[in-house]
């Protein structure tokens, strides 16, 4: 009997140890850790920026690239200090959350159409071609319609394989938002969303998964966050913008897409910009957090450090880092707005930034 008691007691001690440990790290004593999770699209930027901030201030930051939807859910479940998403929360989604959530844009990224065709120069894609390829109506690379836009290119007699995201994704949201704007059949058959009912193609998980699949499959085409295409040396297409010009994604052409109006809560899609210099498939990526930071037993230090970090992330130092990994920096208007939003964030009703 003694042995049994000993066993039970040791188990009980072990369990209670585990609990204490997790409590003390969640509570802001001296060492504060900021936890965030969400989109994979801006992850190359966040990884660098978070590391730099830790080097500068000693504050520990962790970021989990679990996808935009995951970021939203983590914030809802209050397991992170802030979430990250490439698809802003709709009015209905905001209404579902009992506390007020604010959006802070951090950079602008482009979704590029990457493809794997050896010996192929720049592929030019018009609205009609994008629609035909991604709806599965154009199935061969040497289709007359593709030849018409790319008369100088050697197009192989090969089936087109569309690669898409098998997990829910903000990248998919930006891409499908653009497709819905330029194509009526797409809007009717597929629509806009973080995950879709795809008429053709194969799915791969995460931006790295799609990039990997494209680089390993000759004849494939898919959409990915620009940095993933650059890093893997994938070819990417020139896309026809609203003004009819074929544009390559670059810092300038991506920035150009954000020159329009931005609403006060920064929730705006900037795809299919009317600016003739703009690359048409780009979008803001946001940090989302609660306006009132005193929740779930968070300390004042924890809240202050969170807001301070976000102020730095939208400031000039971090924005230069964004540029180094091929995201376009925020336009002035967006920086101004995010400052205002950060100033509106409170702890027990008192603003955290002066």
């Amino acid at each position, binding site marked *: *009997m003694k*042995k*049994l008691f000993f*066993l039970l007691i040791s188990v009980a001690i072990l369990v209670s140890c585990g609990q204490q440990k997790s409590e003390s790290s969640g509570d802001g004593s001296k060492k504060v850790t900021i936890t965030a999770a969400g989109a994979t699209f801006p992850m190359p930027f966040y990884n660098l920026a978070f590391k730099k901030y830790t080097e500068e201030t000693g504050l520990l930051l962790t970021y989990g690239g*679990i*996808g*935009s*939807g*995951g970021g*939203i*859910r983590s914030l*809802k479940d209050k397991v992170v200090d802030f979430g990250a998403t490439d698809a802003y929360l*709709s009015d209905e989604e905001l209404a579902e959350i009992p506390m007020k959530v604010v959006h802070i844009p951090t950079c602008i990224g482009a979704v590029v159409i990457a493809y794997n065709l050896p010996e192929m120069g720049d592929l030019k894609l018009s609205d009609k071609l994008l629609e035909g390829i991604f709806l599965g109506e154009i199935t061969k690379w040497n289709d007359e319609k593709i030849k018409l836009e790319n008369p100088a290119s050697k197009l192989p007699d090969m*089936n087109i*394989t569309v690669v898409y995201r*098998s*997990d*829910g*994704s903000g990248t998919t949201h930006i891409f499908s938002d653009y497709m819905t704007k330029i194509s009526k059949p797409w809007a009717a058959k*597929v*629509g*806009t*969303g*973080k*995950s*879709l*009912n*795809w008429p053709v*193609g*194969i*799915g*791969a*998980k995460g931006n790295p998964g799609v990039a990997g699949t494209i680089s*390993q*499959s000759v*004849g*494939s085409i898919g959409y990915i966050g620009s940095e993933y295409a650059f890093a893997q040396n994938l070819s990417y297409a020139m896309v026809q913008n609203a003004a009819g010009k074929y544009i390559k994604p670059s810092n300038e052409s991506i920035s150009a897409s954000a020159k329009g109006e931005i609403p006060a809560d920064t929730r705006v899609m900037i795809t299919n910009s009317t600016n003739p210099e703009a690359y048409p498939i780009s979008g803001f990526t946001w940090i989302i957090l609660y306006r009132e930071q005193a929740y779930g037993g968070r300390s004042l230090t924890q809240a202050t450090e969170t807001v301070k970090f976000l102020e730095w992330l939208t400031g000039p130092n971090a924005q230069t880092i964004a540029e180094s990994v091929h995201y376009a920096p925020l336009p002035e208007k967006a920086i101004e707005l995010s400052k205002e939003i950060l100033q509106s964030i409170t702890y027990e009703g008192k603003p955290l930034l002066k």
Partner: protein
Amino acid sequence: MKSEKITRYVLFAVSFIILLIFAGMVFSLAGGAIPVFKEYGLKFIFSSDWNPTQGREFYGALPFIAGTLLTSFVALLICLPLSFSTSLFIAEYYHKTRVAKFLGTMVDLLAGVPSIVYGLWGFYALRPVIISLGLSDQGFGVFTSAVILAIMIIPYATSLSNEIITMVPNELKEAAYSLGATRFEVIFSVIFPNARSGIVASYILALGRALGETMAVTMLIGNANIIPKGLFSTGNTMASLIANQFGEADGLKLSALIAIGLLLFLITGIVNAIGKYIIRKMS
């Protein structure tokens, strides 16, 4: 006497915990699945439409049930001749020789390879072979996944079969030989009838493993949410769908994924029950 009692209490407590965990899993899966069954009823199981787009949401599990069963049974078919011959080789023809021991260890090692490694190997080595054979455009699909699954389940089927074949009493075999039976006749009229139920059990175990395999399948099946049109078509399995979409899901979609988890649980249960029934009939 005292230690006797303690052992009994401890054993009882531990097995009760396992029962409790099992019940808890069924309970939470069933609880999470309620909303989607309330919304669609049995249509959830029999519809082939999976559309997570906001505003046109509809969730039907049929493509994934079909994908799971198809990949697993094709895998079992591929695995059957391979592992059956391997077991005969190890446990009968070359029993207790160094070659058999070496081969046995190699087969057991296969079980220890993480499934992501199988996935990678399938992606970089097997897929190009399928493409160059002209079986499919990009090499993704049911067949590719089934081949990988077959390799993954070979150790499960083989090691149990080995044990069972070696357990066939030597007296029986020797009696058969002394009556002038050939080795072939001994295998099929003495060993196989004696070991039948155990061998079937080992394949059921292997099938159960194939049904739930996730990572390697996700990397190779193409993740297209449709009922596979054929052996070389793309598709998706239940486990792979859950792994892909769980991180994002909330609301009805989350409930649909949990319900698919519950269905997978049930299917595995049914397969095991059928297996038990066959074993009882045979022995």
